[in-house]
């Protein structure tokens, strides 16, 4: 009956809620192309003025770190406490620095 081709591709949706803030991932949407993805994202994710700018990226094009390698991957930052300001002793008399 239905000779439907494959489903429309999936797009990840990112929304900037106001100027001064970054775009933030809010979910995904199916659409035939980028233009439709932006319009569908507007209808689904900004019905109450949640955004002033939308980015869509085809889900296939997202590359991600592997959560199972999380420890090893983020470990290098773990023991470098000297990257934080509290590592350094400054007398109180000096005031806020």
């Amino acid at each position, binding site marked *: 009956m239905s000779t439907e*081709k494959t489903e429309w591709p999936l797009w990840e949706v990112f929304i900037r809620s106001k100027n001064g803030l970054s775009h933030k991932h809010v979910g995904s949407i199916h659409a*035939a192309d980028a233009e439709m993805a932006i319009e569908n994202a507007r209808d689904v994710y900004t019905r109450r003025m949640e955004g002033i700018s939308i980015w869509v990226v085809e889900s296939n094009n997202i590359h991600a770190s592997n959560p199972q390698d999380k420890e090893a991957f983020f470990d290098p930052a773990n023991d470098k406490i000297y990257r934080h300001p509290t590592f350094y002793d400054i007398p109180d008399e000096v005031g806020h620095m």
Partner: protein
Amino acid sequence: MTQVRDFEQEFLDKIEKEVKIEARDWMPDAYRKTLIRQISQHAHSEVVGMLPEANWITRAPSLRRKVALLAKVQDEAGHGLYLYSAVETLGAKREDTIDDMHEGRAKYSNIFNYPTLTWADIGTVGWLVDGAAIQNQVMLTRTSHGPYSRAMVRICKEESFHQRQGYEIVMTLAQGTPEQKEMAQDALNRWWWPSLMMFGPSDAESTHSQQSLAWKIKRQGNDELRQEFIDKTVPQAEYLGLTIPDPDLKWNEERGHYDFGKINWDEFLNVIKGNGPMNRSRLRARKAAKDNGAWVREAATAYAEKKAKRKAQSAA
């Protein structure tokens, strides 16, 4: 020495420490399957839930009521899509889950197998059905699955307008002519018990409850949620001067809760099996929507391909 990682233990530790499980994290197959089933059925419920309300859009009694109902039905479509989006992070295909519903392998909320006979039903559905859904969904904002939890937060924010617009409709009728008040009472009589059934069977008889609670997919049992809903709703009915159709309903000082009558679970099982007043009509409408919309989806794909080709040519 090779260290063998116990992924299941790592998963259980996260659950224990209230760390959300995210899309690509390791999770037991049964956890994934339970979530695919639960979230997709939740999504189907949002979508099927549009049907009984859409039934009244053209007959809403004023423009104010019509725009509100339109916006509510549009929200339900959005809610369905937030949830399908969460399902897809689990590796399921949206259209496969929809086919599961159309072919009877997946369900939607049983409440939508009842008809909306009068305008008072639209008010009562907003008040009670959305009220019961909110009760359940507020609990689910704390679910252990990240994408599901975030969808629930969005949905709960939007849902409270639904319940308020419903209650306002019932209130207008309850304070209207005797005939209008009678309509409101009639709708309450028909929707009260099915609304209580929305929380599902008693925990003692619910097959999925225990494991779901252990995995923190659910955070409260069915009976507890139902009791909270009743305790909240009874004073709302009293304010309207309407009578809840349960002769056994009364405040129990000792428990600090309302006692209520026995729920007719035979009716619930019979409707869920497909014998409710609207089961066939709902499925027929959903299938027709998918089949009759196929050419639109195909045309959009063809148009997107054509546009892409043209763009490639002009770039060359």
